[in-house]
């Protein structure tokens, strides 16, 4: 029966990991380092926290590998999507920047 053979990880330990990582996240934004470093650190911390929730609270660690593949597919899609959107966004930003500069430039007559 599923009820008897299901493994229960130490949930309170996971809770403390999550709480501490949240405090670390808040501490990171006050660190005197570059914006890019802060961004990379925050992304790493968020993925770690999400991983802890999925692996232990959602028992993904104790499931089959194929179910894990189903679970990480959206993350891969979303990450790819950022790189699909960015070139277009930068192109639009460049174009509108030119228009803005033209509009704000003093008219020469």
């Amino acid at each position: 029966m599923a009820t008897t053979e299901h493994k229960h990880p130490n949930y309170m330990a996971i809770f403390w990991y999550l709480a501490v990582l949240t405090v670390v996240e808040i501490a990171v934004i006050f660190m005197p380092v570059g914006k890019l470093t802060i961004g990379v650190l925050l992304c790493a911390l968020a993925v770690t926290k999400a991983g802890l929730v999925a692996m232990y609270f959602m028992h993904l660690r104790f499931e089959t590998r194929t179910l894990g593949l189903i679970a990480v597919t959206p993350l891969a899609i979303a990450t790819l999507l950022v790189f699909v959107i960015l070139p277009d966004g930068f192109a639009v930003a460049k174009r509108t920047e030119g228009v803005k500069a033209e509009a704000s430039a003093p008219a020469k007559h």
Partner: protein
Amino acid sequence: MSQAASAHPAVEPAETPLTPESWGKLGMWIFLAGDAVGFGTLLAAYGGMRATSADWPSPYDVLGINLTAVMTFLLICSSVTMVKALEWLGRGDRAKCRLFLFLTALGGAIFVSLQAYEWTHLINAGLHIGRNPWGASLFGASFFIITGFHGLHVSGGVIYLLSMLRYVTNRPQPEASYNAVEIAGLYWHFVDLVWIMVFTFMYLL
């Protein structure tokens, strides 16, 4: 229902190789993967808009993180009460399971209330869908859409958990409701997981 199952009522229908416990669990995982694509798309679009905007306001200055840090902590706590509910049900204690299910739903309800308070505060400060005093108008639109979409998930989760409370109450055998509570837990932890992402990308970054 397959022929084998109707011929032998005690035999379970053919089990899924991915989640031997129940088909429902596989169904919930596939639903969550789809839902995650929805949230992933919203957050990716947010990142794209923000990276290419010249006057994106600083979320830390506009939104503040004191209240949302408390909300994050609350949601993590409600995830713990959810796993405790399932753990007690597994040990056969339905009363404890119902208590922890109730606490989980309560945590979700407080979360949504705090979000309503936060929204009211920000709207009064001038943050609207189409305009705000700090910069890019898409800042307000993306904020309300993403936190609103998540808030709707929490609200739906509270209703789901309360219906699970009834489900457990109506079934004297703890084993009869174990799978259903585990599946509800998957949804609830997913909502927590999404908030971890939203908190990081919309408030901290």
